[in-house]
């Protein structure tokens, strides 16, 4: 049943062609992005999903987003360009991630997938239970699946052993995986025991028009170091608490501008109190995305003290605003910017201070290129259009691949995930399949209305906006 639907859906997307090379017109896909993390929640994953969806719509694909209800925001919403968002009523358990039972989300997600004639399910973030649920159900329904991993994970403790096992189960029969940096790819391949050939590296992007330099905003009588990050342990705020007094004692014209909020704010406040730096260390609190640029352009140096980072958009934003970037050498950060735009240091107070002092000395001598020339170099490095193009290729590739039928899927689970976890999840997969049969018997696919397309090949958003809106 599920298989049949998929074939039909591929046909509606007007192509059986999997190379994309032979035909001039690349196939159009009906994509469903699934993640627990979406607006109104703010963060890297959220903006990634939004920007990628917008660029894919621009390229003529149909995109819908499924996430869980945020407070009173539930049901269906339309965003710019007819991007449809389903806020599904699923129970949030912890940190905006939904509870998972492997089954309860199937009826709702099946409704979305069938009504929207989805061909590719693209799940985001390994922390999102809903994303893993959606992958699981999509495979049961015979849809192609893509997963994007946005974060790095260790191997040392019990919690990572368990989550890595779940990731192995979730990704063992996923068609393709996208990581945001080469380090992240290595990490994901190891965590989920994957074939590296099915893992693509597509970096995040930054909207360069949002982050333009404005040298007139920089005060000339002082040097300002800007830090914009959540104030949490993983961002190395304790290191920052050591750097501030060290450097402020040495350089009387040095100022710190710190944007962000979090439990480690107290560390910075204590340091500021103890060394009487109230006029030189400003804590701005949580910043809205639109205010970030206004803070960045006031500085000369952008400092990132993260202890782990898969990609780090913040340093690209900083460099795009023409700042000199100083960062810890962790995770994927060394891959992000060319050597002359970034100073990499070890994650220790002394190494970071040394790096910062070098940059300060160069800044004083004026040997850095102008902010505008830095911006000109950075602005074309990471664009969402490029990300969408590369993601499109992943969809094209995936659309030609076979979704494992149930017996092959069970065999794959048992051979790939170990005898215990494999058998358990093979059993769960069978139950999920039976549940799907029950749902298909209760409400056959043919009785389900197709949703009005706001976007995609036959999108009504521009042409008949008034009609498409009350459709849901």
């Amino acid at each position: 049943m599920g298989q049949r639907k998929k074939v039909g859906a591929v046909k509606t997307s007007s192509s059986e062609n999997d190379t994309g090379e032979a035909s001039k017109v690349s196939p159009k896909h009906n994509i469903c992005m699934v993640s627990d993390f979406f607006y109104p929640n703010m963060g890297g994953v959220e903006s990634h999903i939004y920007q990628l969806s917008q660029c894919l719509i621009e390229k003529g694909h149909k995109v819908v987003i499924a996430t869980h209800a945020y407070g009173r925001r539930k049901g269906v919403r339309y965003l710019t360009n007819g991007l449809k968002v389903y806020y599904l009523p699923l129970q949030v358990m912890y940190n905006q991630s939904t509870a998972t039972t492997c089954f309860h989300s199937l009826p709702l997600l099946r409704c979305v997938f069938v009504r929207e004639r989805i061909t590719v399910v693209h799940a985001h973030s390994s922390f999102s239970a809903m994303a893993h649920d959606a992958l699981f159900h999509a495979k049961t329904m015979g849809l192609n699946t893509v997963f994007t991993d946005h974060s790095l994970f260790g191997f040392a403790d019990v919690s990572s052993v368990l989550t890595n096992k779940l990731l192995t189960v979730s990704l063992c029969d996923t068609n393709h995986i996208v990581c945001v940096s080469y380090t992240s790819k290595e990490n994901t391949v190891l965590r989920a025991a994957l074939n590296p050939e099915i893992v693509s590296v597509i970096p995040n992007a930054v909207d360069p028009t949002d982050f333009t330099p404005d040298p007139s905003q920089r005060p000339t009588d002082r040097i300002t170091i800007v830090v914009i990050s959540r104030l949490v342990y993983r961002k190395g705020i304790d290191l920052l608490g050591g750097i501030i007094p060290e450097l402020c004692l040495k350089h009387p014209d040095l100022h710190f501008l710190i944007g962000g909020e979090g439990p480690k704010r107290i560390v910075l406040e204590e340091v500021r109190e103890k060394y009487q730096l109230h006029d030189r260390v400003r804590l701005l609190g949580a910043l809205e995305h639109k205010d970030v640029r206004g803070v960045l352009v006031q500085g000369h140096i952008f400092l990132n003290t993260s202890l782990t980072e898969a990609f780090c958009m913040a340093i690209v934003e900083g460099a795009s605003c023409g700042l000199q970037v100083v960062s810890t050498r962790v995770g994927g950060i060394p891959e992000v910017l060319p050597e002359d735009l970034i100073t990499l240091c070890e994650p220790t107070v002394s190494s970071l201070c040394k790096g910062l002092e070098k940059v300060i000395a160069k800044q004083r001598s004026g040997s850095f290129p102008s902010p505008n020339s830095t911006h000109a170099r950075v602005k074309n490095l990471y664009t969402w259009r490029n990300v969408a193009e590369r993601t499109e290729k992943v969809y094209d590739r995936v659309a030609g691949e076979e979704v494992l039928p149930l017996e092959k899927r069970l065999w794959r689970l048992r051979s790939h995930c170990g005898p215990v976890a494999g058998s358990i999840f093979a059993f769960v997969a069978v139950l999920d399949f039976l549940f799907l049969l029950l749902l298909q018997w209760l409400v056959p696919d043919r009785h389900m209305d197709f949703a009005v397309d706001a976007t995609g090949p036959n999108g009504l958003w521009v042409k008949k906006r008034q009609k498409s809106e009350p459709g849901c």
Partner: protein
Amino acid sequence: MGPDGVPSQSVPWRKVLWERQPFPDNYVDQRFLEELRRNEGIRQYRYWAVVKEAGFVGQQLSCVAIFITLWLYMEQGLLSPETLLWTSLSCALPGYGLYQVLTAQTESCSESRTHLADSQSAVLFLSFTFGFSPVLKTLTESVSTDTVYAMSALMLLAHLLSFPYAHPSPPGSLSLNAALFASVCLASRLPGALHTFAMLTCALLVFALWPCLLQRLRENAPGHFTGACVGVCVGGVGGLGSQSPGGAMLLSLALVSVTLICPLLLVSLQRHKDNIQGPWDEAEIQEDLSRFLH
């Protein structure tokens, strides 16, 4: 660019994202995972060294057995409280002297507690226990004996599980409290108030002071430490054997498995250890950053 691009072998692949490279996105270079490190800083265990360390666990198990044996003798009236008290005292005084000698060997300069402070604590503890022993004796009168036994067994188990075997001096608060709770429970089932006092004094000696002395021995006289452990184990099995041969069998089985078989397992399973490290690991802050705050 993209999975359809044809990789030209003339340009070497670089692990950078900022450069558009003529390789597909899913390209896997030979250098893939080259920064992966396995089993870094792994400790190679030697069997007899592990057995020696496991001896501490074994002797602690035997200490519990010895304590229970003493209690059994007291309960049956085979051991008078006076004898126990005098024996305890005659063990405590040389033990204290030995402890002082061993401490003086290592840390002569650092400020240690004075003898006066030590004797003050001892007097305080003894007088309070003596004063309260009639109360402790009747404490669990309204509780059924079965409950008291079950509770004691549970608490002694908790003592063994939560005992800080790596740094037993001073004994961890949870393990010490569990052991003392168990001894109060058991002591309250003895015939008289003096019995209770003697039992509690003995418990203090076995569960609080002996681990401290043994730790000193482990640090300063490793040879004697092994001897002490073996002695305690033999004493435990022998003592328990005089009261319950079945219990002694079980204890010796437990001792053999803890001190001989478990280390064997650890050493033989060590070669299966596969610990992966790489650039994705969260960096650890090695420095002491509190100096900036205080």
